Every structure is written in C-alpha cells, then in structure tokens.
C-alpha cells in the first residue's frame, strides 16, 4: 500500500445525463480510495441502468409500462417509488414525479443516489468528501482539519457573479434553476413550465430532500418563500428573473460572501 495524500483524490464520472465528481480529502491509502470509488461508481452506473427513463429495458420503464408489478421490482425501485409519494405529499403536490403523464423519478434519483454514494465513501472511512452531481452537492466532514466547506452558489442571471458563498459543515446544497436546462420544471397543477423564479437553492441535511424541495419551490413560484420558511432543518434562497432575491434567516447565517 502506498500512502498518499487524498487532497488530489478527484474522480469524475459521466452518468445519469450529468457529471458526478468526487473530491475526497484527508490521508488515505491509494488502494482504499480506489476500492471506495470503484464501489461508488459501480453504484451510480447501476442506478443509471435501473432508473433510466431513456433506456426502454430499464426496470423503471418496465414498471411504468405495467410489465412489472411493484412486488417484482428491486427494493431500490420500491424505495424510490415510496420517496416520490412522500415528497409529493411533503411539498403540497408541487414535487410530482407523475407530472409528465408517466412515472419519471429522475428528480429524486439523482439526489438519492448521490446521498448513497456519499454513504459508500463514509462506510470506507472516507469521511471528508464532496460528491457533486451537476451542481447539486452532498458534503461530509471538512476540506482540512478545522476548516469548513465553502460552497459557491451560481448567480442565475449574471454570468460573472455568485448569488452567495456558503460555509456548509455537512449536508447538501441543491440548486434548481431555469438558466442551464431551460424551462424544465413543470407546475404540476397547470401543466405549464415554471418560469416565475429564476432559481431556488436549498441547503439541508440530505440531497434527496434538498433537491426535491428546490424543484418543488421552483414550480411553486411566488408562493415558494412562504412555503420554504415553514421547512424545519432546510434553508433556502430564491432569485427572480428580475434579479430580486429572498432567503431564509438561516441561509443568511451560512453566508460568507
């Protein structure tokens, strides 16, 4: 075993239509890093195969077409199905995996699978890391002893600005916006693309929920701040296409810039 500094322990994977990158800090043997990353990467690739709505033979598509009963699905698909129902209820219906006329759990699967990938690294003793799924991030531990992770939040309107820089000890930061993927979030009650807000950033303990809440808030539009304020353990920032911003008091406390 070669001792090495994991400060350079970076890895990147194209999966689920995005790029997932890992940054692992703290001293760790190279073989351990390799084993842990192999497991995390294999997990994400399995998730991609199983939950893809683009691959016709995926388990999610077979279930959606009625070829598989719920009992015939693997435990992970059943778990994600349950999460979709829970998050639909927890967001007053604004997070809706059925909004497009079929079951599309993609809005849960990315955050959930990244949370699980982070769990895999932790199970290997790699407690200081970031897993970044296309700008939605799960963080654990610290970048170095005594320090705190710093997360920049991209400004949705100004190409040369940040909307915030946050000190995040551990947890998740998810941003849902209309600027990079276009108007891709539907208001499930009107069936129209959500366009009242430019972006929503949610900070919380896990990415599964933070990501779904950010998506739901984007769909809510003007009602989002009132709802976000009621959430326990989650803080948020909202920006409008006119360049106005709103954030919870807790979000303001996380700001370093």
């Amino acid at each position, binding site marked *: 075993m070669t001792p090495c500094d994991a400060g350079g322990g970076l890895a*990147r*994977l*194209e999966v689920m239509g995005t*790029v997932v990158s890992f940054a692992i800090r703290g001293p760790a043997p190279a073989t351990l890093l390799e084993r842990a990353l192999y497991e995390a990467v294999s997990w994400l690739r399995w998730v991609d195969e199983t939950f893809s709505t683009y691959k016709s033979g995926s388990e999610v598509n077979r279930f959606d077409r009625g070829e598989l009963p719920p009992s015939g699905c693997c435990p992970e698909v059943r778990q994600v199905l349950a999460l979709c129902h829970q998050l639909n209820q927890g967001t007053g219906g604004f997070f809706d995996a059925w909004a497009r006329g079929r079951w599309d759990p993609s809005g849960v699967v990315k955050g959930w699978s990244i949370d699980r990938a982070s769990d895999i690294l932790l199970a290997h003793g790699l407690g200081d890391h970031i897993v*970044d799924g296309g*700008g939605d991030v799960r963080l654990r531990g610290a970048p170095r002893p005594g320090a705190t992770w*710093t997360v*920049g939040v991209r400004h949705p309107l100004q190409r*040369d600005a*940040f909307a915030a820089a946050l000190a995040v000890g551990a947890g998740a930061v998810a941003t849902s916006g209309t600027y990079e993927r276009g108007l891709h979030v539907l208001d499930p009650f009107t069936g129209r693309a959500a366009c009242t807000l430019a972006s929503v950033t949610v900070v919380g303990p896990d990415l599964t929920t933070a990501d779904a809440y950010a998506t739901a808030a984007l769909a809510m539009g003007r009602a989002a701040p009132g709802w976000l304020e009621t959430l326990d353990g989650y803080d948020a920032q909202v920006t409008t296409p006119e360049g106005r911003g709103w954030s919870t008091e807790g979000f303001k406390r996380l700001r370093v810039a």
Partner: protein
Amino acid sequence: MRRAVIATVGTAVGLVLLLGYKAGTPSKPQEVSVGGGAAATTTVPGATTTAPGSTTTTTGGSGGSATAGTFTGQLVDYAYGDLQVAVTIKDNRVSDVSVVENEATDPRSQMIDSEAVPILQQEALSAQGVNIDVVSGATFTSDAFAQALQSALQKAGK
C-alpha cells in the same frame, strides 16, 4: 434534446482517477483506472487530471506573501477539454484572474463553460485566494477551475 445528450455521454462512461502526492513524496501522479464491466476499459480521453505534485486545497494565504506579477498555472485537463488560468498579483492581492486557455471539446460544454468560467473568475477575485470548494448550480468546470487557479496561485507563492 436531453435524449441526445444522454446518447452522447452514455456510451463514454469511463473514469480515470489520479491521485496527487503530497509535496515531498514522489511527485508523479499515479493513474488508476476505476470501472467495472465492459466499460471498465473505456476511458474518456483526458478525463480527469490532477496537476503533478499539487493538492486542491489552499491554506488560505496564511503567512506566505506573494510576489507581484502575473502567474500562469498549469494546463488542467477535465472531462470536456483543457483549462489554464493566470493570476495577477498586485500589492499582495489577487487583482485579476484570466482564462489563458479554455478549449472545450464538445459544443454543449462550450456553452456551459462560457457561462461558468466567468463566474468562477469573479469568485476568485472576491475571495482573494480563499477557496470555493464546489459550486452549486454550475456544472462540469468547477473542479478544473479550482485546480487551474490553485496551480497559478502556487506559482505566485500565494
């Protein structure tokens, strides 16, 4: 449109992990391929690179004072191209960050880079060498930018 993107990246699932060694230990990065199944041998050309001997964290400029001038960091490969930045130090502060080279190899990445890179530059300026570890809401380039910037700052002695 999203279907087309998936078709493009779905066939090229691959991963290269490079482990940078601490200064003082052998300085060549060790290249380790990670993957499973048939795609294990599929490596995206120039997928991920850590500059030899570099680490991705900075101590935030405690102690060391930087020399005035402009310092160009190493060329950093990332999933979609190459990135190189230069920092200008004046009065012991970062007064400018410029992208010397940003060659993205696919059109989608170029589009994203044209947005993400200027934002990351702005942050380097406002943070004056305090590292942003990750960017929420910007995809693909933040690691590469952090590495490229770190490399330039190291040359500046910042």
